[in-house]
């Protein structure tokens, strides 16, 4: 006779247990990023302080993923909503979650100015090199030669420019005494958690944090598991994975 164990899945406290199955596509990177973020919130015991905002695009599906107060905002506008929150209540730890389109295209002015002003929040840009929710169009981070619905013959950088490097851009304008700027990848979740830890600690100290997370979109990439992993590795060669800015005293 087989004995059934009454054992639920291991969920972080900061994860909403009632959300059920993941709403993201099979193989999507968002679930991995959000789960890691939730674990980090638990470990730093920021559950009561954290306020989570999500953008429009695939990231909108995270609107009830976290077991923390959450606002689903509008495309590109998560950054101003969340710095609006933390300006009004500086005790909170604000997290603005978005994709590469929301962060680096339609919301780029907010990213630039939030970095310049050292707004007190963590901006997470999940970079999967395309607009997933709308069907896989070119985004600012689409790789040279990458096929998308609006670059069906591959991204031609002569016509569309070079891919945007978000972390490098933010690093060049962020105040080194108040900021933490990094790029991580879903290929190494332990390292991602360490990055989130530093980022959230910095926000809790009143600083500005930016983490770009290289992520995957097998559905729109039309890749199988092996190809998805290979693509991620190619991205890691193009987009350097490292901490770009780390204020003194932050560990």
């Amino acid at each position, binding site marked *: 006779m087989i004995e059934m164990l009454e054992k639920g899945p291991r969920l972080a406290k900061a994860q909403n247990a009632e959300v059920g199955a993941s709403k993201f596509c099979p193989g999507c990177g968002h679930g991995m990023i959000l789960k890691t973020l939730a674990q980090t919130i638990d470990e730093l015991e920021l559950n009561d302080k954290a306020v989570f905002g999500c953008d429009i695009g695939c990231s909108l599906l995270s*609107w009830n993923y976290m077991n923390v107060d959450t606002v689903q905002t509008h495309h590109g*506008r998560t950054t101003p909503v969340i710095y609006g929150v933390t300006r009004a209540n500086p005790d909170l730890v604000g997290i603005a979650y978005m994709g590469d389109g929301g962060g680096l295209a339609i919301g780029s002015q907010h990213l630039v100015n939030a970095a310049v002003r050292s707004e007190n929040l963590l901006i997470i840009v999940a970079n999967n090199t395309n607009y997933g929710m709308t069907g896989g169009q070119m985004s600012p981070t689409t790789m040279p030669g990458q096929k998308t619905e609006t670059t069906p013959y591959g991204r031609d950088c002569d016509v569309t420019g070079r891919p945007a490097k978000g972390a490098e851009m933010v690093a060049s304008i962020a105040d080194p005494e108040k900021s933490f700027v990094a790029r991580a990848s879903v290929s190494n979740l332990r390292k991602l958690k360490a990055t989130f830890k530093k980022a959230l600690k910095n926000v809790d100290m009143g600083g500005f944090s930016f983490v770009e997370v290289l992520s995957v979109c097998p559905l729109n990439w039309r890749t199988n598991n092996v190809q998805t992993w290979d693509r991620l590795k190619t991205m890691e060669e193009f987009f350097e994975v490292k901490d770009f800015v780390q204020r003194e005293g932050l560990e």
Partner: protein
Amino acid sequence: MVKKLITQDTRMFLTGNEVIAYAANAAEAEFMYGYPITPQNEIMHTWCKLLPKTEAGFLQTEDEISAGFSTIGGILAGKRAFTATAGPGNVIMQDAQSMAEMMRIPFVCAVMQRGGPSTATVIYAQQETRLTCFGGNGEGFRIVYSTAGHQDLYDYMIKAFNTAWKYRFPTFMLADGYQGKMREPVTLYDPASRGIKMVPVEATLGGANGSRPVNHVRNTFNLEEELMEVLDKYQEEFDRISPEIEEYLEYKADDAEVLIIAHGIVARSAMTAVDELRAKGIKAGLFRPITLRPLAVKPLRAAVARAKQVLFTESANGQLAQMVLEKIYGLQTPYSTLFKMGVGVTGDDIVQKVESMVKEPATV
């Protein structure tokens, strides 16, 4: 908690923009988010100058999009926050105003109209009437007060906060650059001295510490029917509360044969015109909607039905007239128009127009 500057009735000679900043403080507003655009700049100038005394907060954002959205953030964090804008700033702030409609956020914004379309002129117009009432990709779940002078600016800015927080529809105080830049005597007062209690504010995001279930505030719906269910409820609520909110002013409208319909500062010109016309033996009167959303439809229809002719006059090409005509459908009173796009309407303009209407009655 902010410190209130006005503790007893104080007579001052101020520009309208200054009045708005004082009114926001009197209403216990705690935070302003803003971006420079003429003719509303002095609202934030005054707000900033007063900060050491009020201990309130201010953030100058990177554009009106972020001014609108960070205002939403401040409100969600439980602050009585507000913003102000004008013209093209009002256009791009629709992005945030729509979200405030969808999420029923007590968003408060002073709109100081300037000329349009686009950059146009920087001081005056009534061309943001339609935009302020029905902007965004929605249904106009907004409350809009149109002011006609400095006492109005003070009274309705205070009222806007309470209306917004009580009913949770975005609330606008629609004025214009003439009102913003002009100086007038005005009585500033502590709202408590007039029996006005400020509606308490509460945080949607943060500060719960386990005292309530976690909030997940939504802006996207999966199904068309799911959205309609929500919006039907909003519409039902908007209709139900409208009688509590509707405001209007009638000036010698009881026996008016020519009824002038005007809002904002043009209504003030109309009042001088009514007196002048009455002195000349012409029975003129004014109907001034104070709330443009919702319109006080019943008294409006009654006033129009009593009159022999109606004159719509605006510093726009009939933006209010369009809204009113829909609501007086079925009445037979003919009307004329005096529309000056982006230009002020004087009492003389109205007197001449009404005199010509008396000679040659309107037929439309």
